[in-house]
């Protein structure tokens, strides 16, 4: 087997592989940066909860469209995700529950509701598709949606970069200078939901968040500044997509989980090899004079 057979032929020979690859690249571009900011805002688990929250909406879209339809399920997921994000924010501001506790309650409800709704009409195969995605069955319409969401994500992040960071560093300061921190917070939550919706046909509702959080953790292990973290996270998300697709092709594995497992493997390697990882502790370098 030549290198060409290994790395390029699958994409050159099969249209579904090409579309899957483009979907992975677009997903990585959007989810990577969003994941880094989620992690830095100490909202990793919130991202996880939101990905579950998308499910009942997607399931309702599934029912309404009478089958797997990305526009209907995407719209349903978007509405459900936003509703849970807003409701959790509301609950934590008006009751004694902290935001993480109210997110946990909402996502458990959502997951149960979602599985219930899909199992009303659909088969177990449909349920599997909703939960774990079908990246090899992506059509051009779905590609446009994913690419559009990635482009909108990057443009929005570039626009609200400064207030978002200020809100994360020191929310009191932003309130004190009269800027609307909550507005940027909700814009950011909107981006999270949008990217989860983009990810759920390819990776499924449960694993869409994997392409956010794993690259973010990898980035934090390798670099220390925010721009570098955003770049490393995007690169590792894209690389996991590329490598995961190839591995799943050559070994006949399910592609969504393979992509996430590839990202996990990168993460484990980083845990050991990265500058702030385990290996470096075994070889302490001599300290500097100043």
């Amino acid at each position, binding site marked *: 087997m030549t290198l060409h057979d290994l790395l390029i032929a699958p994409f050159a020979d099969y249209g579904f592989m090409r579309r899957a690859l483009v979907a992975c690249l677009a997903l990585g571009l959007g989810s990577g940066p969003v994941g880094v900011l989620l992690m*830095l805002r*100490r909202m990793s688990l919130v991202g996880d909860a939101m990905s579950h929250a998308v499910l009942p909406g997607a399931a309702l879209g599934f029912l309404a469209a009478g089958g797997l339809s990305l526009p209907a399920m995407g719209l349903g997921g978007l509405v459900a995700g936003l509703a849970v994000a807003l409701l959790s924010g509301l609950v934590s501001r008006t009751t004694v529950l902290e935001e993480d506790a109210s997110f946990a309650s909402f996502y458990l409800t959502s997951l149960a509701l979602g599985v219930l709704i899909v199992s009303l009409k659909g088969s177990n195969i449909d349920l599997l598709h909703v939960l774990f995605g079908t990246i090899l069955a992506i059509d051009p319409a779905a590609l446009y949606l994913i690419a559009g969401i990635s482009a909108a994500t990057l443009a929005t992040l570039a*626009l*609200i970069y*400064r*207030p978002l*960071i*200020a809100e*994360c*560093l*020191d*929310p*009191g*300061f932003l*309130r*004190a*200078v*009269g*800027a609307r921190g909550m507005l*940027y917070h909700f814009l950011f939550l909107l981006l999270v939901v949008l990217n989860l919706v983009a990810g759920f046909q390819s990776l499924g509702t449960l694993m869409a968040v994997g392409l956010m959080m794993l690259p973010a953790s990898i980035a934090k292990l390798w670099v*220390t*500044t*925010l721009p570098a*973290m955003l770049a490393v996270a995007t690169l590792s998300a894209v690389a996991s997509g590329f490598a995961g697709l190839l591995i799943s092709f050559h070994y006949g594995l399910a592609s969504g989980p393979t992509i996430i497992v590839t990202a996990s493997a990168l993460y484990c390697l980083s845990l050991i090899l990265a500058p702030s990882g385990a290996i470096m502790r075994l070889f302490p370098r001599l300290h500097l004079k100043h």
Partner: protein
Amino acid sequence: MKNSAIHLTDVTISYHRHPAVHHVSGIFPPGSLTAIVGPNGAGKSTLLKAIMGELPLAGGTIQRGGIEQRDFGYLPQAAEINRSFPLSVADAVLLGAWRRTGAFRGITAAIADEARQALSAVGLAGFERRPIGSLSAGQFQRVLFARLLLQDARVILLDEPFNAIDARTTADLLAIIRRWHGDGRTIIAVLHDFEQVKSHFPRTLLMARELIAWGDTGSSLTAAHLLKARTMAENWLDSAVVCSGQDRGAA
């Protein structure tokens, strides 16, 4: 610097209907340098936030005489800041130019230059590219003061600026506060060290939920007043009745 007085009239702020600040009245004259002191839980930080207009009042009014929200410079307590965020010292200081840059406008060369000067004014020249996570507590407090320098605010509110800060850093930062006082800015600081208040702050507001004394530091920080503050802070009743407004503090 043109400035105005801040008038507090019968200000009450409550959490869950329990007053954290109870019937406080008085004036911060323009350009005054005031220390707010009192036991833990006395409502000092709450009062600061209310002065900025960040907390709703349960009663009374605060007249700011044309000072807008953006004219306030605020130094939060250290615990409210996420210091592990991967931001450089220069970027953290540049947030102080928010009034000029807003959320979207660019940083001009002049502003960047000002930030460098502010950093050297707080003794951190050359720290621009260091991540804030690598700084000590004292160095980080200097960064926050540099941010305030850049903010060029008419009213500066400092919430426990010298907690866990060593003597030398405290002395440097006190010098900056004196400089601001000389500029005619109104400065209000929550503090715990009575000796520091006596030697550097001409005016003092002593409170324990209710006002105990507010005026010249010498006449406010008497032993009798401090004893009163300590006893008042300790009586918190779970089954309090609705306040009729008749029994307000004498001050």
